[in-house]
């Protein structure tokens, strides 16, 4: 409950029943195989022939062998089997196969004195457990075991004292190491110490085991100590081969642009101006805080070492790791901020362990270049403010205990208190940072749950969101089902629905080509869901989606993001029925849905005007008062082919940002007449290219306000009308609010309608 999340717990000794220690006696290549070898392995009681593909297998090695019947931690069952015609009586295991590390490159090679024939689990030693913690980026102090121990003490209300303060070292010789810091901003502190006559060799088993438990591979005793102390203290350290440092001195400077440097993993980096380098008298020997150089690496032949323990500024390390694209255990710690005042203590601890494990003597005192020491931050802290922000009453002395246990110096003799935060806590800079510490240690769950005690009503604020919800519910009521599709589509899909390629809003770092562009139209992503379902034999698809569409305005070059509702429909007109004949949904079904949808929004008359679209076979603009609010049509086969769709699909898209402002905020109801309506039918023959909406407009205009309903109920073209003509039959309903209409009145209106239709578009009454 301290914010140190335990992400996993696992045993240091995995379940390796059936794995024994063997010694490789002979290694022979197998015919017809480039890398498989047949090995004769002594297992103590018996000898076994085992086929092995590892590049590092060699006679004389002690190795872990899984014998037939063993089940490895990854579930693999070992049995006797033939490989390339050669009998194999078990398997020599890698660390990965034994769940000891991720290392799967070769087999695991054990200590030369590992007892042959003994169970491998005994070799691994006493069972222990590794806790894997998730450390948030503000807590570099917890990137070492000592920091974690401090947190545990604090949580138990106990003071904590770092064991580093009790490291005792033998007296040092009087050699000196020159350290020049030429970039004090990036490197405020650099300590170096010379240890002569070390004996580089393998690390003892306890050290190898502990490093392995935290996922590190043993290199040699000196390098292992630097890593171990980093894991202990959080302070990264580096050991140079002193004989390889030209001039025997250290210069800390920034790189020149284009300077080349080879790190100890063999990679050459081209540096940028400002990258921080550790140099000897002549050349760079380490990429500061990130990785040492190949030219000064500690090796079997090393006799004298220079031990570095420094404080590099987070901004500098972070910039370099970003520019060079490298990240190491060391750089991750410096980036977040190690304790500038802990460099010496960590160096002492490492020196102590090196002397213990590799011998040698301290030839110099700690050379400590620290031109401007970094002092603890002083923070004004008001206990009342603490309680006000947290909403509870914590006693002042309890706050003080918490802060002191965390390592703060607290002067509560004045108001506000003056609190000095320890330098290992770079996250503590402001009063609120201390309030967080008090809350954290006091326990978030001890803080009461307060119920809302104020009323806050702002009824106008939700208008657009409420409108969208209303629109979604109407769409669902009109038989459309809501879907949610990805806002990113492929470039090809987007291009089909975009005016030009310059208008596409593209991603710099897309996950894949399929998600490279922000959709310019909801169609571009919704059709993916049509295809997905058609592929699964679902053919009746009536989808809608509300989402944003994106384009880059070709003139202003600004990103234009609009909220739209889109619908795509395909399949049958009715649900399969024994009574109703199968028919497919068509343009007019969708148009009807749209007309009803818009009518329910009370938008006033909506016009559908035929228009050309590059993605529609035929389509229309949706206009309200000449303003385009959307479009509807039938998708072209060429577009559907891109989605692998072989059925007819119709679509409509309406821009909600444009519709919302013109939706009336209140309704104007019309009176319901108490007088009877009069119904008449009228069939007119017109040219077959005359849009029916045009004829309707003429009829309405000529008929005037007494015409209350106008419904097209038949469309005919064929032998009963002249060639290139069609007949449109309407039903007209007339009604007045103040009287019963007479036949004469209605006939008179019909005559006017006929005359107007004849005069304007040559319509004649169908006989």
């Amino acid at each position, binding site marked *: 409950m301290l914010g140190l999340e335990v992400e996993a717990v696992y045993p240091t000794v995995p379940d390796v029943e059936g794995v024994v220690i063997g010694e490789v006696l002979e290694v022979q290549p197998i015919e017809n195989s480039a890398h498989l070898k047949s090995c004769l392995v002594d297992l103590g009681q018996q000898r076994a022939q085992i086929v092995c593909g590892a590049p590092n297998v060699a006679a004389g090695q002690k190795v872990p062998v899984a014998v037939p019947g063993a089940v490895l931690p990854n579930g693999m069952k070992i049995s006797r089997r033939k490989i390339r015609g050669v009998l194999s009586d078990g398997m020599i295991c890698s660390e990965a196969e034994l769940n000891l590390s991720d290392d799967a490159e070769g087999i695991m090679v054990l200590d030369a004195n590992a007892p042959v024939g003994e169970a491998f689990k005994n070799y691994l030693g006493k069972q222990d457990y590794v806790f894997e913690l998730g450390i948030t*980026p503000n807590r570099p102090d917890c990137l070492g075991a000592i920091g974690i121990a401090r947190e545990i003490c604090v949580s138990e209300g106990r003071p904590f004292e770092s064991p580093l303060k009790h490291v005792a070292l033998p007296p040092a010789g009087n050699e000196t190491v020159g350290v020049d810091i030429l970039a004090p901003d990036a490197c405020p502190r650099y300590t170096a110490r010379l240890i002569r006559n070390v004996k580089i060799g393998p690390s003892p088993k306890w050290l190898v085991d502990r490093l392995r438990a935290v996922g590190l591979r043993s290199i040699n005793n000196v390098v292992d100590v630097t890593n171990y102390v980093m894991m202990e203290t959080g302070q990264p350290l580096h050991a140079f081969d002193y004989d390889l440092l030209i001039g025997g001195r250290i210069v800390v400077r920034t790189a020149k642009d284009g300077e080349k440097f080879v790190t100890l993993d063999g990679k050459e980096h081209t540096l940028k101006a400002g990258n921080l380098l550790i140099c000897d008298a002549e050349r760079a020997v380490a990429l500061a805080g990130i990785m040492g150089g190949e030219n000064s690496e500690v090796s079997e032949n090393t006799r004298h070492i220079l031990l570095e323990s420094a404080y590099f500024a987070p*901004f500098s390390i972070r910039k370099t790791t970003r520019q060079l694209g490298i990240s190491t255990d060391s750089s991750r710690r410096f980036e977040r901020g190690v304790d500038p005042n802990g460099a010496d203590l960590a160096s002492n601890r490492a020196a102590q362990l090196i002397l213990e494990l590799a011998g040698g003597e301290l030839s110099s005192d700690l050379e400590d270049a620290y031109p401007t020491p970094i002092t603890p931050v002083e923070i004004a802290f008001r206990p009342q403010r603490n309680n006000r922000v947290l909403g509870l009453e914590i006693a002042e002395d309890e706050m003080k205990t918490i802060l002191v246990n965390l390592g703060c110096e607290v002067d509560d003799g004045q108001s506000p208190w003056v609190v000095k935060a320890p330098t290992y806590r770079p996250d503590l800079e402001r009063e*609120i940072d201390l309030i967080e510490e008090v809350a954290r240690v006091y326990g978030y769950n001890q803080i009461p749950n307060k119920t809302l005690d104020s009323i806050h009503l702002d009824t106008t604020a939700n208008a657009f969101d409420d409108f969208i919800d209303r629109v979604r519910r109407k769409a669902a009521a009109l038989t459309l089902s809501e879907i949610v599709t990805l806002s990113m589509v492929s470039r090809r899909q987007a291009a089909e629905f975009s005016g030009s390629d310059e208008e596409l809003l593209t991603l*710099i770092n897309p996950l894949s080509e399929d998600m490279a562009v922000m959709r310019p139209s909801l169609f571009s992503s919704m059709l993916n869901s049509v295809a997905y379902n058609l592929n699964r034999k679902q053919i009746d698809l009536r989808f809608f989606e509300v989402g944003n569409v994106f384009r880059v305005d070709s003139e202003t070059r600004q990103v234009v993001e609009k909220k739209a509702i889109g619908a795509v429909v395909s399949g049958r007109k*009715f649900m399969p029925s024994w009574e109703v004949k199968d028919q497919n949904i068509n343009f007019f079904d969708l148009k009807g849905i749209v007309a009803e949808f818009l009518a329910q929004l009370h938008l006033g008359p909506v016009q559908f005007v035929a228009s050309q679209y590059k993605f529609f076979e035929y389509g229309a603009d949706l206009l309200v008062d000449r303003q385009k609010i959307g479009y509807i049509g039938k998708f072209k086969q060429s577009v559907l082919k891109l989605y692998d769709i072989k059925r007819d699909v119709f679509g409509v898209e309406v821009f909600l940002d444009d519709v919302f402002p013109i939706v009336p905020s209140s309704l104007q109801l019309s009176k319901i007449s108490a007088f009877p309506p009069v119904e008449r039918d009228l069939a007119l023959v017109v040219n077959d290219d005359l849009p029916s909406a045009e004829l309707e407009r003429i009829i309405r205009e000529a008929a005037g306000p007494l015409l209350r309903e106008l419904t097209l109920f038949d469309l005919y073209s064929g032998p009963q009308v002249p060639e290139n003509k069609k007949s449109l039959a309407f039903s007209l309903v007339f009604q007045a609010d103040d009287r019963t209409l007479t036949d004469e009145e209605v006939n008179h209106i019909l005559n006017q309608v006929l005359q107007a239709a004849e005069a304007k578009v040559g319509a004649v009454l169908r006989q």
Partner: protein
Amino acid sequence: MLERLIEKLDALSQDFEQKAASVKTEQELQALRVEFLGKKGHLTQFFRHLAELPPEQKPLLGQKVNQLKNQFQKRIQEISDSLQNKAVSAAEIDVTLPGNRPFAGRLHPLMQVLDEIKEIFKGMGFTVEMGPEAETDYYNFEALNIPKDHPSRDLQDTFYLAHNQMLLRTHTSPVQIRTMESRKPPIRIIAPGRCFRNDTPDATHSPMFHQVEGLVVDEGVSFADLKGVLLSFMQKLFGKNTKIRFRPSFFPFTEPSAEYDVSCIMCGGKGCRVCKDTGWLEISGAGMVDPAVFGFVEYDAEKYTGYAFGMGVERIAMLKYQIGDIRMFYENNVRFLTQF
């Protein structure tokens, strides 16, 4: 003449009875009525013959015609009554035949959950705010106290746009800033919407997801208020016995920061497969608005305090419906969608 007419009337009566016996529907009955009793009906013809008869014979025929008229009317009424009362046999209409179902539109499960979340918060006096999905670095990071080169940017893999140095918002937190820029406290809002992160899709990750973020700013707002609001929200969403728990965490835009969990909605906290025997389900992050954020929007951090919280809509929907794979929400398989 009279005899002939009376004979004809008898024949008419027989004809009527015959036809009446075969009437099965209201339409047929109506036809029968018109044929015999209509303006030009058979019986009406006889009234015309009355005029042609000598006066002493008139009453006789008239009586006879009226008698028949009454008889017909009565019979028609009887048939009409029985037709309106009739029960149709199973052989005529098989009521077990399937009905003609309309296509029914449905709302997406994710949006249903979002609707529910919004309703609960609206009931608590929160208003809903929106903002663009294509955002600027300033609103998505900088004004939220996440400067360039800050390690916490590593927490979020951002999609960058090849235009005006914009990006796809990684959370709906930019709406906090936009709202605070446009008005003064008190503020009590939620910001629902799509967010984007450069995560390779798998069962629990999607490059696009939905978040609801809440923000409350006023004088005297405390961490205890934050806890109370989230507790009462979660109890409304998951049931009144739901408990919540806070764990310290880190976000650059809140301090103190917390992760919060709810007691497992499956087992109530006893431990089960869903909560991996912990009794708790992780939901998201929350905390007190960092004073640095108030600095960006020129609020007086001494006068005002505030809290913010987030929650993933997918996460809640997956818990609520026990859905194991987040990708199901965006595939829109009809067989999945029609279950909600």
